[in-house]
């Protein structure tokens, strides 16, 4: 057991498992970002105002950054 913890396998498994968790979490976050885009679009349709497009742009920016987060997590 001690030999397992001290050799390089520990780092490999530890960071491997961490990476899997990070990627899964990022995927969940991406799903949430998609819901945000849908919901903001739906809200803007329900109550239309001159500045709603700014909110839609922000929701898409958030989606783009959550995609970037996945790419970063996969590249770790």
């Amino acid at each position, binding site marked *: 057991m001690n030999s397992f913890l001290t050799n390089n396998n520990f780092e490999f498994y530890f960071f491997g498992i*961490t990476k899997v968790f990070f990627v899964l979490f990022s995927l969940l976050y991406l799903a*949430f970002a998609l*819901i*945000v885009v849908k*919901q*903001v679009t739906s*809200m803007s349709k329900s109550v239309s105002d001159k500045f709603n497009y700014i909110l839609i742009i*922000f929701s898409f920016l*958030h989606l783009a*950054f959550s995609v970037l987060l996945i790419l970063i997590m996969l590249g770790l």
Partner: protein
Amino acid sequence: MTRSKDLDTIAPDDIVISKPIPEIPSVQPKKNKIIKTKIETKEPTVIEDFNQKIHDILGHTKNPFSSFLVHPKVLKFTEQDDHEIIYLAVRPHWITNISWFFISIAMLFVPLFFGYLSFLNVFPIQYRLALVLFWYLITFIYGFEKFLSWYFDLFLITNERVVDIDFNNLLNKHFAEADISAIQDVSFSIKGILGTFFNFGTVLVQTASEKNQIIFNNVANPQKIMRLLKELRDLDEHQGEQL
């Protein structure tokens, strides 16, 4: 002496009762004509007076992000009728945003303290950068969600009804409405130091419709809202009487 003359002498009151009866049909149409002409001439002035009253009560606003929008021309909602005019659109007072605004600002500085967390030093720099990016996304979505909840939390007063539109936590939509004619009672309350200082409070509208209460929390100028609803009810009653 004929029979009728004989009765008249015995009971003279009968003559007084029987005389006006034939005159009634001729009088009634004349009265109706007078009422109709009065309505025709007064109707435009009543609406003009009402618009002037609304202007006097509410004043005017130009900022689209204001929490008290008078006659918003660009604001529309899906359930709105073609001829429906929005007199007032109200959001919770802007001061109610102050807590989440400062929390968001504080959250921006949290990554500066990541270096002090010793367990994070175990991870390579790429992991820590990813964590910082993730933290800023969380910060952004926290502030954005709070802003959206405020921005789309609308209380609308139109010429036909009172509407409450609410989006909670990005996932729930709430819509409630009550006709102006169904409003039974309107009351408001202003509580606390902030409420008194910034003049915002809760407006409670009691209605005769299925949902018997519509509550608007933390709305600016509750007195003005109450006065506007009173004027709308008066106008509605006035129009009802004329019809």
